[in-house]
């Protein structure tokens, strides 16, 4: 039940994408999102889809792993699809139903938005699938570090993120154990009305929070024992380094952007 949550899941294998500097990948994802939102014509979407497929292939992550991340989004996608389909009033009417007018513009917009969402989720999930949490937080720390001059605690933000990610499996395990222990004491989580069910969560939540505080306390003491005093002067075991693969990724990114702009100019020329 709890195992289905795949937040920040990392797929451990070796691929050009795994080898890349996390900073390249973080910037790449931002870049990817910009390109995706620039897309408007069918050809531009095809280009984005082709690029996504190429990157997925490159990552060596099984496609089933990536599509699994889409499951929780089915609701949202259905909602956007319906909204775009029914609420667009421009274009030629295809058919009429009750107070709704379904137009060709609406259909096109709905399909485009759905494709955009799918590509967005698949492309961005590759970031956590190919980057270990440690590398990811390291990358974020370095990317944020220029901001530390204006008082942004970049090291602390990264440390909190990595601790939070580290403790997700631990807390899951703990939750599972507490649920079983209270079940063995006759607790019932599945019947009763809403208020009774919420009340039934108390025997799980109180020990869970107590445990989280206990762990936080222990971790703080352990960190202090090892003389942790924040980011100043800290070095890392694995230095981040831009390599050839990162330069190549950059070139691919620029080519993609150029192709996207080229398609836009072509389309504009076609109309004019």
């Amino acid at each position, binding site marked *: 039940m709890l*195992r289905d949550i795949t937040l920040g899941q990392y797929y451990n294998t070796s691929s050009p994408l795994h080898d890349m500097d996390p900073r390249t990948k973080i910037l790449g994802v931002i870049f990817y999102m910009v390109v995706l939102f620039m897309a408007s014509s069918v050809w531009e979407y095809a280009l984005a889809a082709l690029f996504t497929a190429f990157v997925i292939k490159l990552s060596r992550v099984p496609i089933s792993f990536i599509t699994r991340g889409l499951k929780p989004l089915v609701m949202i996608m259905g909602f956007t699809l319906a909204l775009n389909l029914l609420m667009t009033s421009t274009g030629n009417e295809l058919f009429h139903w009750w107070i709704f007018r379904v137009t060709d513009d609406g259909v096109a917009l709905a399909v485009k938005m759905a494709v955009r969402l799918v590509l967005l989720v698949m492309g961005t999930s590759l970031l956590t699938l190919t980057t270990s949490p440690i590398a990811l937080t390291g990358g974020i720390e370095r990317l944020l570090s220029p901001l530390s001059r204006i008082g942004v605690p970049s090291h602390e933000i990264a440390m909190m993120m990595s601790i939070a990610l580290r403790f997700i499996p631990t807390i899951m395990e*703990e939750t599972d*154990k*507490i649920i*079983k*222990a*209270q*079940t*063995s*004491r*006759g*607790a*019932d989580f599945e019947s009763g009305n809403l208020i009774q069910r919420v009340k039934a969560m*108390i*025997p799980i939540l*109180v*020990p869970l929070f*107590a*445990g989280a505080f*206990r762990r936080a306390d222990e971790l703080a003491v352990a960190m202090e024992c090892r003389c942790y005093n924040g980011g100043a002067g800290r070095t890392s075991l694995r230095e981040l380094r831009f390599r050839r693969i990162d330069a190549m990724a950059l070139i691919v990114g620029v080519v993609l952007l150029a192709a996207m702009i080229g398609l836009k100019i072509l389309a504009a020329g076609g109309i004019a």
Partner: protein
Amino acid sequence: MIELKNVTYTYNKNEPSARVALSDVSLKLDDGDFLGLIGHTGSGKSTLMQIVAGLLPPPQGSVSVDGRDYADYKSAARELRKKVGLVFQYPEHQLFEETVYKDIAFGPKNQKLTGDEIDERVREAARRVRLDSGLLEKSPFDLSGGQKRRVAIAGVVAMKPEVLILDEPTAGLDPAGRDELLNMLGELHRDWRRTIILVSHSMEDIARTVKTAAVMNNGKLVMNGPVEEIFSRGAELRTMGLNTPQISRIVDGLIDAGLPLSRRIFTVKAAADEIEKIVRSKR
């Protein structure tokens, strides 16, 4: 009576991380048994006990409860949960109520007992685990580690389960606390005549508390019988990362040195008695 036949259990089935925790385990628990379950970390003890307590998704194999065979584990699990009370490892981490009294009363309340019955159960359980009645109105979070452990055990004892399972109940306790807890289990079994299973990897605890034991290794049940029989197979135990009780090894050394002691000594008390006998006879 609970009987498991050819039970196999796999964690994360159908996933790359799949791991077989139990393979082909058969175990019969008669009413009134006082069984020790021994095994190295990761040998499958806890998984086996969770299946007996009806807390895991269905395993392969069959389960019968009180002579009734259940076609599917799900309906058996409902029955098992009613009969079996499981005290998990470090049970003090599961306390949640405002007062010790309320926490111990949680189980009996779920059993839909009347107020008077609940009160009686709570007080009896507190007495059983030797919890000072003055602590009943305190917050469980204000108690010491050892006291919390007793509250948590009392919470299951108060339900008077037909089968009481304790998973490593002495882990992290000091020697005095351990002695007291094991004595308490002995008394409970003597007075209640209900099934108790003590899961442990401490041979000392097993030797001094129970008469029969089962040994698990790599998800398999490899030995099952009287404690003396199990401890007489020291070499086999050692291949599983286990050992005979410390005192048995000392006695073995004394025998090799020429002292006429029995090979069937597994507790410090028995060793002391035997040695005293020899010393007296020599005077």
